[in-house]
C-alpha cells in the first residue's frame, strides 16, 4: 500500500525470549483459534446462508445444494449499484475533507505559536467526546435550514472536521525534526510549501492508518445517514441494506446474508490484501 519496503516488523526479527514454546504455544494457539472461530461465526454463517437455498438457512447439512440465486435476488431487489456509488462518493468526500482540514489545523497547532492556540486545541478536542451522533436533533435542524436534507454532503458535513484526525496529525507533525522545517524555510519555502514538502510526506503512515479508520467507520455508519436521506440517489449502503431487510413479510436471511456479503466485499478484500501494511502503518503512525 504505502510501498515502503518493510520486510519484517522489528519485533520478529530477533528471537523473543518470551515467545511461547512447546505446550504453551499449543495451548495459546488453541485458545486463539477457538476465539477466532467464535469471532468469524457471523461471517461464516453469512456465507452459508448466502450460498444455499432458503430452506437450508437454518439447517446445516453438508449435502445442501449450492446456489448463487440469493445473490441475484438481492442484487435485483434493491439498487445496490447506486448505493455502492453513493457510499463510495460519501467516504471519499469525507476522507478528502478530513485530510485537508485536519492537515491544515494540525500544522497550525503543532508548529505555529500564536495567540489562542491552546483554546483552539481545547475546542477541537471537545469533539472527541461530543460525538456528532449525540447531536442528531440539532444537526438535523441546521441541515434542514441549509436545505441540504437528502443529499450526500448532508451526511458528510458533520464529520468533515474530525478532532481525532487533527489530534493524530498534530502528534505526528510534532515528531518532525524542527531542523527539516528550518532548512526548507531557509531555502525560501512558504509555510504551505513547507507543510506539503516536509510534513505531509513524513506523516504518510498516519494518513494511511487514519484513512483506514475513517473509511471503515463511514462505510458502516448508519444512524445519521438514516435520518438525513430519503431517496435512492443519496442513500448509502447501510441505510439501503436496512430499508431492504426490514419488511412486513418477515426476515429472509438468505437474501440478507447475500446482500451483506456483497456490500462488505470491497472492505473485506481490501483488508485481506493489505492487513500487514495496515498494522504497520498503525505502528509507525504511533496510534498506540
Amino acid at each position, binding site marked *: 500500500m504505502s510501498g515502503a519496503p518493510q520486510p519484517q516488523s522489528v519485533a520478529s526479527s530477533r528471537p523473543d525470549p518470551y515467545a511461547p514454546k512447546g505446550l504453551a504455544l499449543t495451548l495459546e*494457539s488453541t485458545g486463539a483459534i477457538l*476465539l477466532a472461530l467464535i469471532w468469524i461465526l457471523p461471517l461464516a454463517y453469512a456465507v452459508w446462508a448466502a450460498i444455499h437455498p432458503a430452506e437450508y438457512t437454518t439447517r446445516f447439512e453438508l449435502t445442501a445444494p449450492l446456489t448463487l440465486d440469493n445473490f441475484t435476488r438481492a442484487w435485483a431487489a434493491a439498487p445496490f449499484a447506486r448505493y455502492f456509488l453513493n457510499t463510495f462518493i460519501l467516504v471519499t468526500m469525507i476522507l478528502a475533507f478530513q485530510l485537508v482540514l485536519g492537515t491544515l489545523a494540525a500544522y497550525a497547532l503543532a508548529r505555529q505559536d*500564536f495567540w489562542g492556540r491552546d483554546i*483552539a486545541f481545547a475546542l477541537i478536542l471537545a*469533539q472527541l467526546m461530543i460525538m456528532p451522533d449525540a447531536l442528531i436533533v440539532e444537526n438535523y435542524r441546521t441541515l434542514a435550514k441549509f436545505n441540504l436534507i437528502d443529499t450526500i454532503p448532508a451526511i458528510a458535513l458533520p464529520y468533515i472536521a474530525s478532532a481525532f484526525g487533527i489530534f493524530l496529525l498534530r502528534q505526528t507533525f510534532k515528531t518532525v525534526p524542527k531542523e527539516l522545517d528550518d532548512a526548507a524555510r531557509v531555502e525560501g519555502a512558504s509555510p504551505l510549501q513547507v507543510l506539503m514538502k516536509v510534513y505531509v510526506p513524513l506523516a504518510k503512515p498516519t494518513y494511511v492508518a487514519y484513512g483506514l479508520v475513517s473509511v471503515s467507520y463511514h462505510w458502516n455508519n448508519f444512524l445519521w445517514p438514516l435520518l438525513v436521506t430519503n431517496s435512492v440517489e443519496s442513500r448509502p449502503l447501510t441505510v439501503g441494506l436496512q430499508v431492504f431487510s426490514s419488511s412486513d413479510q418477515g426476515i429472509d436471511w438468505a437474501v440478507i446474508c447475500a446482500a451483506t456479503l456483497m456490500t462488505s466485499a470491497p472492505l473485506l478484500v481490501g483488508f485481506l490484501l493489505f492487513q500487514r501494511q495496515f498494522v504497520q502503518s498503525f505502528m509507525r503512525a504511533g496510534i498506540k
Partner: protein
Amino acid sequence: MTNRATATIHGWLLLLPAMACLALFTHWPAIASFVDSFMSTPRARRPARFVGLDNYQQMMADPIFWKAMANNLWFAMGTIPTSIALALLMAVWVNDRIAGRTLVRMAYFTPTILPMIAVANIWLFFFTPQYGLLEQIVGAFGGRSTNWLGSQDTALYAVTVVAIWKEAGFFMIFYLAALQAIPPSLGEAAAIEGASRWTFFRRVQFPLLMPTTLFVLINAVINAFRMIDHIFVMTRGGPDNATTLLLFYIYQVGFGFWDTTYAAALTCVLLLLLALVAFVQYGWLERRTHYQ
C-alpha cells in the same frame, strides 16, 4: 505588524476551515441543545416558548429515561472492560507466532469491517428461539430453550455481547501496533534478569501500553453511548424498554415523537455524562500515563 500578530493570523487562517465546521456541527448544536431544553416543543398552533425546567422535571419523572440510563450504565460496564481485555488478549496472541496467525488476526478484525446494521440480522438468527444457532448448540447439549431477545432478563446481555464482538477486534489493532513497537531489547533484558513472562507483561509491556489503553478506553466509552445500530434491528429497545439505550431514546423522542425540546434536554444529559467521563479520564489517567 509584529511577528506574533502575523503568526496569529496565519495560525487562525489554517484553523479556520476545521474550526468553522466544528463550530457549526459540534459547538453550536451543543449550545442550541442547551438553550432548546428550556423551551417547549413548537407545534403548529403553539410556537415555542420558555418553560424553564419543565423538560428536566418531565425527565426526572420519566421512568423510561431512568431505565435508559440504567441500561446504558450496564451496557457500558459490560462492553468497556470486556472488549478492552479481549482486545489485549487478542493482540498478545496474534503478536506471538501462533499457528495460523494471519487467519486468526483476520478473524478478529472482520467485525470492524461488517456493517453492524447487517450483522445484527445475523445475530438475530443466532438468538432466535427454537432453531437459532445458539439454540441448536444449546439443544445439542440438552440445554433449555431460551428466548434471548424476548426476555427482559437476557435481552440486554444479548445486545451487549454483540457490541463486544463488534469492537474488540478494532481495539486489537491498536494494541497490536503498540506491542510491535516495544523494543525487543526490553524483553531480552528482562529475560536476563529472570523475570517470568507474567511479570514481564505486568511490569514492562502493560505500562508501556498505557497510552494505548487510554486511547482505547476513550473510544470504548464513546462507543458505549454511540452503538445503537444493532438495537434498531434486534429489539427496537424492547421488551418493555429493556434494551433502550440513551441515544436510542433520544432518537425515539426526537424523530418518533417529534418532541424536539425534550430530546434536546436528553441530549444535554448525554453530553454532561460524556463531559464527566472525559474529565475523570483526562484528570486521573493522564497522570498515570507516559506519553513520549
